[in-house]
């Protein structure tokens, strides 16, 4: 078994129109920028995939990563807890124009719903959001005299995540706070693709230090020097970058 995928284009091939896609990252930390941009390349070349539902804590920042996906018109709906950022223009304009849907989920509920999807738990109860607008329409039950809201699992067709080390079996480690949602999304998607900063042979990760066991990972693709979304935005980057001839025209 060898889960290595030779390049980004192959890694994101086969994600169909209308797919639900979980994308790792909290703000810029852990955002799999290269996988996202490869998906945009495919969309620009083929018109597919479109009508995507994207699950991420945020709704993009600036004009790279998820924001660029939204800007290109690939995204039908965002599921997130905090669709704001330093430069949330792309999402905000489409949202206010009614061109993109939003399911707003409290952050911890979002994390737990994704874990539930990965762990085979169709529903669970939480006090979070009880009595608020975000609990509207959800079943409520009392346990030991306290009211709780019933939340459903979240699953996805594909998860795109960023990891640090990845071995041929798909075992993963992460880098600092870039871990965030990725181990959960890896569990909850039918197919999980991880871009890894370094691919190593089996045995290259101490079994004690594996954060995501390979059973949750379908493929890894090495991206040796990954871009940091925050750094890109501080440099006013956009994707795809404006081409010289377009600038002139």
């Amino acid at each position, binding site marked *: *078994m060898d889960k290595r995928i030779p390049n980004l284009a192959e890694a994101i091939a086969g994600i169909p129109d209308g797919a639900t896609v979980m994308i790792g990252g909290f703000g810029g930390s852990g955002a799999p920028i290269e996988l996202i941009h490869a998906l945009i390349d495919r969309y620009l070349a083929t018109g597919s995939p479109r009508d995507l539902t994207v699950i991420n804590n945020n709704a993009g920042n600036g004009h790279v990563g998820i924001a660029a996906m939204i800007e290109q018109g690939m995204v039908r709906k965002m599921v997130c807890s905090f669709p704001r950022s330093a430069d949330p223009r792309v999402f905000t304009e489409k949202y206010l124009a009614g061109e993109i849907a939003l399911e707003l989920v409290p952050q911890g509920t979002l994390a737990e719903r994704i*874990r539930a*999807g*990965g*762990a*085979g*738990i169709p529903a669970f109860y939480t006090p979070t959001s009880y009595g608020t607008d975000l609990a509207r329409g959800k079943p409520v039950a009392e346990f030991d005299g306290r009211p709780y809201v019933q939340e459903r699992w979240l699953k996805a067709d594909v998860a795109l995540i960023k990891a640090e080390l990845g*071995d*041929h*079996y798909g*075992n993963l480690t992460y880098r600092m706070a870039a871990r965030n949602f990725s181990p959960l999304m890896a*569990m909850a998607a039918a197919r999980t693709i991880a871009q890894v900063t370094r691919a190593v*042979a*089996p*045995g290259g*990760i101490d*079994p*004690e230090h*594996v954060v995501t*066991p*390979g*059973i*949750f990972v379908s493929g890894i693709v090495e991206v040796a020097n990954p871009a940091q979304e925050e750094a890109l935005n501080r440099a006013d980057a956009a994707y795809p970058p404006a081409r010289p001839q377009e600038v002139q025209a």
Partner: protein
Amino acid sequence: MTRKLTNAQIAWRAAQDIADGAYVNLGIGFPEMVAKFQPPGRQAVFHTENGVLGFGEAPPAGQEDWDLINAGKKAITLKPGAAFFHHADSFAMVRGGHLDVAILGAYQVAQNGDLANWSTGPKGVPAVGGAMDLVHGAKRVAVITDHVTKDGKPKLLEACTLPLTGVGCVTRVYTSLAVVDIEGGRFVLREKLPAISLDDLQAVTGARLHLDGAVGDLVVPEL
């Protein structure tokens, strides 16, 4: 009664259906034997409920590390690419549908896929372990078993009489006489020992065996 397969031979037959790279959980005891019979060129990744993925065979006697055991509490070894994790993550793998196949023993299997393999009744101390989790998690739940009980009674039945482990969960049964699929609430005979007649096989089976095309010969090596 006719000659029948040994446990090793039943395990061998079950092992032939495991794909390269499959994630597999083997029940405690007899099913653990399946790991020995992977076809050449195929390598499954074995999961044990207590929190190890990618383990290998038992260490030589005297070299056991009792912090490195499987669900049957037998000492194991690690293969390169192994991982440790806690019990909730381990059962997320099981219950979240991430295992490709679980191979379990059985007291009884019913034609609707019900399985009884954890309790022989109200006397004694009950113990369930991970059996009830495994039957509802793995993508494919197979059973390996002698075709009949020690006193010759059928184990493949119209309905289980012993306490259930899971409802409608088993899809294939490898027995000492046959390979039987469970489809649409019926036993469908896929393979049988060449030496046993259909009538004789039906006679030791507690529910109707249906045919769906040709019945293959169940041929296994001497083991």
